[in-house]
C-alpha cells in the first residue's frame, strides 16, 4: 500500500516538475536559513561553556566617579585581583589579563602579533584552555615564560619542538614553556600567545587606578557571588575613603562582579573580545522561526492548490473503495516524501552555504552541530510536522468530501481562504519590514563612509613606532617623508579614528578653576597638515614650539603647547578667539596655540568629545604617511625599502587609515549583509507564497475566466481582475510594515550620535519594489490562464 503511495507521489512529482521544484526549493531555503541562523545562535549561546569552572568565574568591572560623572568600565587596575584574594576567603584565584600587540621574533621570522596576552600564572588553572605541552600550574610562573598556541608553534618553529627555546618579544627574550591548543572560537578570551603577567613591566606595582586590565576571579562556589558582591561594596567604601582619600560626596570606586557566562551576551562592557547582545540573538531567533513559518505556510498553500486539481483522482479512488484514512495517508505520504527531499536539500544547502554565511557574519562557524543527534531528531520531527501540516489540509478536505462532489473537477476549498490571505499579508509585512531596515542600514553606512570627518582618511598609511624607534623618530620620519609620492608625514600616540586616551584638564586656580573631562591626543608638529585638520583660530605648530619642548633637568621646566577642539573651548567657556594664548593644564601647564574644528574622534555612535592636542614627540606610537595616491604599489615598495634600512627589528607592517575607519563599522556592515540576505530571502519566499495562492485561485477561477473571455474580455482585463485582489493584500501589508519599520529603524539609529534622518523615500521605494515584484509574480501565473483557449477550460465541465 505504502509503496503504491510513494510510487504515485514520485510520479506526480515528476509530472509537475516546476511546481515540485518551486515547492521543495521554497521549503529547503526556509530550512537553510533556519539552520544557518540556528548554528549561529547555538555558537553564540555556547560561548565560554567549555570552561569547567565557568559557573564559578566572575569578571570584575569597575564603577567609579572621580568628580564629573559616573563611569563604568570592564577595565580595572592591577590591585583588584590580588587584594580581593587576600581580603575575601571566597576568592580562590584571580587572573589579570591584558591584550597587547607585540613584535615576535624567532631566528629570521619576525611578525607583528595582535593576539598577545599577558596573564597571571593561574590562567590555565582557572580557564579550561587545553595545554598540549607543559604544566598548567607552572607554565606562567616566571616573568620570562611564554605559551604558544599550536598554530603559532607551527608558524614560528615548523616541525621543531619549541619547548625551552627562546623567542624575542619586543626587546625581551622569553622562553617557551608550553604549547596550548588554539583558543576555541566561542571564547571571550582568544589568544595566540600568553606570557606571564609578571613580565608586563607597567603591571609590577598594585594600583587601584590606571585601569587597563581585565580581571577575572575564580570563586570557591558559584553561590558566593551575591554575598561577595555585597561585601565588595562595603569594602570598597572603606578603601575609597581611607586609602584613596576620595572626599567628594559623589565620588566613589567600587566593583561589580559579572558572572563569566553572562559577559558575552549580557554585558554592555567590552573586554578582550567584542561582545554580542542577547537582543540580537532573540531577533535572529524570531527571524529564523518566521522564515521557517513562512516557508511552511507557502508549502501548505502550494500543496493545497495542487491537491485541488486532483480531486478527480481522489473521487475515483473513493469510487474504487478507498476509505477516508487511505486517502488521508496517501496525501500524508506524498507530503512526507516531498518534505524529506526539502529537508535533505536544506541540510545540503546549509553545508554549501556555511562558508559564505561565515564571511557575511564574520563568524567561524562549523557544521558539527548539524550532525548532533538532537539536531537530526528535531529536523526529522520538523519534517513530520511540516509534512502533516501541508498534507493534512487537502487530505482532510478531500477525504471528507462527498464523492460525487470531489469527482466533479469543480470541487473547491472554500474554507481557510481568510487564513490564507492573512498569511500572505503577514509574509509581505515581514518582507517590507526587512527591506525598509536594509535600506536604512545601508543609507546610514554610506553616510558614515562619506561624511566629512574633519580630517582626511584617504591615502594615509599608518605605521607603528615603538620605544626602540623613538630616539630616532625625527630621522626615520624625515627619511620616509623624502620617499617619492609622499606628501607629508606626521606622528601621534594613536590614530584619530577612535581616540582612547581619556584625561582631565583645567583652567585657572582656586575658585576660578574649571576642570573638564577630555580626550587627549599627543602629536608631533606635522599633524595638522598631514591629517588635514582645520585651524579656526590661532596658528599651526612650528619648529619654535618643538625647540621650546624642554626635557632637560628631569622635565622640571617642561611646558606643553596645546591645541583645543571647538568642544573643548566651549566646555571651558571661551570663544575660539578668546582661547588663544590662555594657559591650561593637562598634567603640565601650557599655552593654547590654536583652536581646531571639531573632528570625529570616535565612531559615529559617540558624540564628539572635548579634545586637547599637545605637542610631545616622545609619545608618538603611530606614524601617518600621506601619499599622493598615484602609483600606490611602487610608493609602498619604496617606503618598504626605507623602512628596512631604518628599522631593522620589526617588519614593514602597515595599514590604511580608511580601512581602520571602516573596520569600526564592521558590526553594522555585517548587520547590513545579514539583513540584505534575509530580506531577499523573505521577499523570495513571500513571492513563492503569492505564486502559490495565485496558482490556486487560477485553478478555481479557470471556468470564470473562460466565460469572461467568451464574453469578450481581453488579457489585460483579466490580468487586472486577478491582480487587484492580491495587490490589495500587499498594500495592506505595506500599511502595517511602514510604521513598524519606521519605529524599529529609528530605534536602531538611536545608537548613533550622528545619523541620517529617515525620509519618506525609504518607504516609497520599499513599497514600490514590493508591489512591482508581487505584480510580476501574479502576472506570471495569471497570464497563463488568461491566454488559455476558453473552449478548453469550459469543456472540462
Amino acid at each position, binding site marked *: 500500500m505504502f509503496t*503504491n503511495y510513494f510510487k504515485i507521489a514520485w510520479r*506526480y512529482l515528476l509530472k509537475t516538475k516546476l511546481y515540485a521544484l518551486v515547492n521543495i526549493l521554497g521549503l529547503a531555503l526556509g530550512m537553510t536559513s533556519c539552520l544557518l541562523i540556528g548554528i549561529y545562535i547555538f555558537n553564540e549561546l555556547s560561548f565560554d561553556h567549555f570552561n569547567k569552572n565557568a559557573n564559578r568565574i566572575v569578571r570584575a568591572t569597575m564603577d567609579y566617579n572621580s568628580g564629573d560623572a559616573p563611569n563604568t568600565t570592564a577595565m580595572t587596575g592591577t590591585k583588584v585581583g590580588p587584594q580581593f584574594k587576600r581580603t575575601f576567603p571566597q576568592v580562590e584565584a584571580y587572573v589579570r589579563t591584558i591584550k597587547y600587540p607585540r613584535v615576535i621574533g624567532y631566528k629570521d621570522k619576525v611578525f607583528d602579533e595582535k593576539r598577545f596576552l599577558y596573564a597571571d600564572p593561574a590562567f590555565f588553572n582557572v580557564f579550561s584552555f587545553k595545554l598540549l605541552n607543559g604544566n598548567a600550574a607552572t607554565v606562567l610562573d616566571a616573568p620570562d615564560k611564554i605559551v604558544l598556541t599550536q598554530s603559532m608553534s607551527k608558524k614560528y618553529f615548523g616541525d621543531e619542538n619549541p619547548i625551552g627555546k627562546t623567542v624575542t618579544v619586543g626587546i625581551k627574550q622569553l622562553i617557551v614553556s608550553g604549547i596550548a591548543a588554539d583558543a576555541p572560537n566561542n571564547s571571550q578570551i582568544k589568544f595566540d600567545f600568553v606570557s606571564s603577567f609578571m613580565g608586563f613591566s607597567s603591571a609590577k606595582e598594585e594600583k587601584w587606578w590606571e585601569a587597563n586590565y581585565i580581571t577575572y576571579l575564580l570563586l570557591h562556589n558559584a553561590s558566593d557571588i551575591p554575598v561577595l558582591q555585597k561585601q565588595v561594596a562595603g569594602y570598597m567604601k572603606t578603601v575609597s575613603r581611607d586609602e584613596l582619600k576620595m572626599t567628594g560626596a559623589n565620588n566613589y570606586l567600587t566593583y561589580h562582579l559579572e558572572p563569566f557566562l553572562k559577559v558575552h551576551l549580557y554585558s554592555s562592557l567590552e573586554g578582550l573580545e567584542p561582545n554580542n547582545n542577547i537582543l540580537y540573538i532573540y531577533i535572529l531567533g524570531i527571524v529564523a522561526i518566521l522564515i521557517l513559518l513562512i516557508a511552511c505556510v507557502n508549502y501548505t498553500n502550494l500543496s493545497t492548490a495542487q491537491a485541488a486539481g486532483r480531486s478527480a*483522482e481522489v473521487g475515483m479512488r473513493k469510487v*474504487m473503495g478507498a476509505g477516508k484514512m*487511505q486517502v488521508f495517508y496517501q496525501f500524508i505520504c506524498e507530503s512526507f516524501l516531498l518534505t524529506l527531499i526539502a529537508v535533505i536539500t536544506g541540510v545540503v544547502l546549509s553545508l554549501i552555504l556555511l562558508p559564505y554565511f561565515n564571511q557575511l557574519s564574520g563568524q567561524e562557524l562549523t557544521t558539527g552541530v548539524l550532525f548532533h543527534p538532537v539536531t537530526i531528531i528535531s529536523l526529522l520531527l520538523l519534517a513530520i510536522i511540516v509534512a502533516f501540516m501541508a498534507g493534512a489540509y487537502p487530505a482532510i478536505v478531500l477525504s471528507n468530501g462527498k*464523492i*460525487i462532489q470531489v*469527482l466533479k473537477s469543480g470541487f473547491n476549498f472554500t474554507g481557510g481562504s481568510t487564513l490564507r490571505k492573512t498569511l500572505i499579508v503577514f509574509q509581505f509585512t515581514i518582507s517590507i519590514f526587512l527591506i525598509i531596515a536594509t535600506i536604512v542600514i545601508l543609507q546610514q553606512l554610506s553616510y558614515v563612509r562619506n561624511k566629512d570627518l574633519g580630517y582626511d582618511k584617504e591615502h594615509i598609511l599608518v605605521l607603528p613606532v615603538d620605544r626602540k624607534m623613538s630616539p630616532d623618530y625625527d630621522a626615520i620620519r624625515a627619511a620616509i617623508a623624502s620617499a617619492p609620492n609622499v606628501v607629508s608625514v606626521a606622528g601621534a600616540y594613536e590614530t584619530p579614528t577612535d581616540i582612547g586616551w581619556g584625561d582631565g584638564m583645567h583652567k585657572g586656580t582656586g575658585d576660578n578653576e574649571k576642570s573638564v573631562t577630555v580626550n587627549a591626543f599627543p602629536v608631533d608638529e606635522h599633524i595638522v597638515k598631514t591629517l588635514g585638520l582645520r585651524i579656526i583660530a590661532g596658528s599651526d605648530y612650528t619648529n619654535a614650539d618643538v625647540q621650546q619642548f624642554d626635557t632637560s633637568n628631569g622635565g622640571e621646566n617642561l611646558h606643553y603647547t596645546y591645541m583645543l577642539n571647538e568642544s573643548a573651548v566651549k566646555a571651558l567657556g571661551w570663544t575660539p578667539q578668546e582661547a588663544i594664548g590662555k594657559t591650561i593644564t593637562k598634567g603640565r601647564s601650557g599655552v593654547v596655540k590654536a583652536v581646531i574644528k571639531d573632528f570625529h574622534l570616535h565612531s559615529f555612535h559617540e558624540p564628539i568629545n572635548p579634545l586637547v592636542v599637545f605637542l610631545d614627540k616622545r609619545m608618538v606610537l603611530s606614524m601617518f604617511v600621506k601619499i599622493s595616491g598615484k602609483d600606490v604599489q611602487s610608493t609602498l615598495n619604496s617606503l618598504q625599502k626605507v623602512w628596512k634600512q631604518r628599522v631593522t627589528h620589526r617588519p614593514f607592517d602597515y595599514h590604511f587609515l580608511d580601512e581602520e575607519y571602516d573596520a569600526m563599522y564592521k558590526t553594522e556592515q555585517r548587520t547590513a549583509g545579514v539583513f540584505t540576505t534575509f530580506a531577499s530571502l523573505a521577499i523570495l519566499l513571500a513571492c513563492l507564497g503569492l505564486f502559490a495562492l495565485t496558482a490556486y485561485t487560477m485553478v478555481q477561477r479557470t471556468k470564470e475566466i473562460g466565460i469572461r473571455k467568451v464574453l469578450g474580455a481581453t488579457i489585460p482585463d483579466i490580468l487586472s481582475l486577478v491582480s487587484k485582489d492580491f495587490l490589495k493584500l500587499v498594500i495592506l501589508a505595506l500599511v502595517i510594515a511602514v510604521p513598524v519599520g519606521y519605529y524599529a529603524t529609528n530605534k536602531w539609529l538611536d545608537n548613533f550620535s550622528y545619523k541620517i534622518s529617515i525620509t519618506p523615500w525609504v518607504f516609497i521605494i520599499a513599497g514600490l519594489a514590493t508591489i512591482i515584484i508581487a505584480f510580476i509574480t501574479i502576472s506570471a501565473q495569471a497570464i497563463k490562464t488568461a491566454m488559455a483557449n476558453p473552449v478548453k477550460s469550459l469543456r472540462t465541465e
Partner: protein
Amino acid sequence: MIELQHIYKWINSGGNRTFLLKDINLSIAEGDFISIMGPSGSGKSTLLNVMGMLDEPSEGQYVFMGDDVFKMKEKQRSNLYKQHIGFVFQAYHLIDELTVYENIETPLLYQDIKGAERKAIVADMLDRFQIVGKKDLFPAQLSGGQQQLVGVARALVAKPKLLLADEPTGNLNSKQGEEIMELFKKINEEDGVTIVQVTHSEKNAAYGSRIIHLLDGRIESTQ
C-alpha cells in the same frame, strides 16, 4: 437485488424546490441488464449515483441485497459498496499517474488483498480483456476505447455483483462503443453480473433486458 421505494431528491435554490428525482419505484433482480434513457436533465445520472451510493436521496428507501442502505452506518455501507459495486464513467476517470496494470490493481489494494493473489487477479483480468501488452502504459498513451476497456476491467477486477455505467460509450466512436457493449453483454450473460447503464443511444440501450425511460425525474415508462 435492488429495491428502490419512493425515492425523491431535490435541491433548494432561491426558495424554489427543484426536483431531480420524483417518486422513483424500481426493483432490479440479480442478473438483470437495465438501460436508463432520457433527455438531458431528466435525472439519469442522479439515479445511477443513488444506486451506487455515491449520492443520497432526500427521501425514500433503498434496499440493497436485503439491507436497508440508508439505515446503515457509513462504514458498513462503504464495505457493502466496496465489495459489490463497480463503476464505469463516460470520462473513464483513470488515474493519470498510474499504469494500466496499477489502475486495475488499485481497487484490490483498497480491499486489502495480498500481493500474490492481487497479481494473479490482475493478470487474469489483463488476459481476459486482451490488454496484457499495454499493462505498462499510462492512460495518456491509450486510445479512448482502450482507456474505457481499462476502466471496465478496473470496475470488474474486484468481482462486483453490480456494475453501474454512466454513459460508458459517450466519448467513444460507434465501433469502440459496440465493442464495449458486446463486452457488457458477455459479462452479464457469462458471469451473471447485474448491469445498470445510462445511455443516450437507442442502439446501446437495446442490449439491456429492460429499458427505463426517465423524464423530469420520474419514470415515464418501462419496456
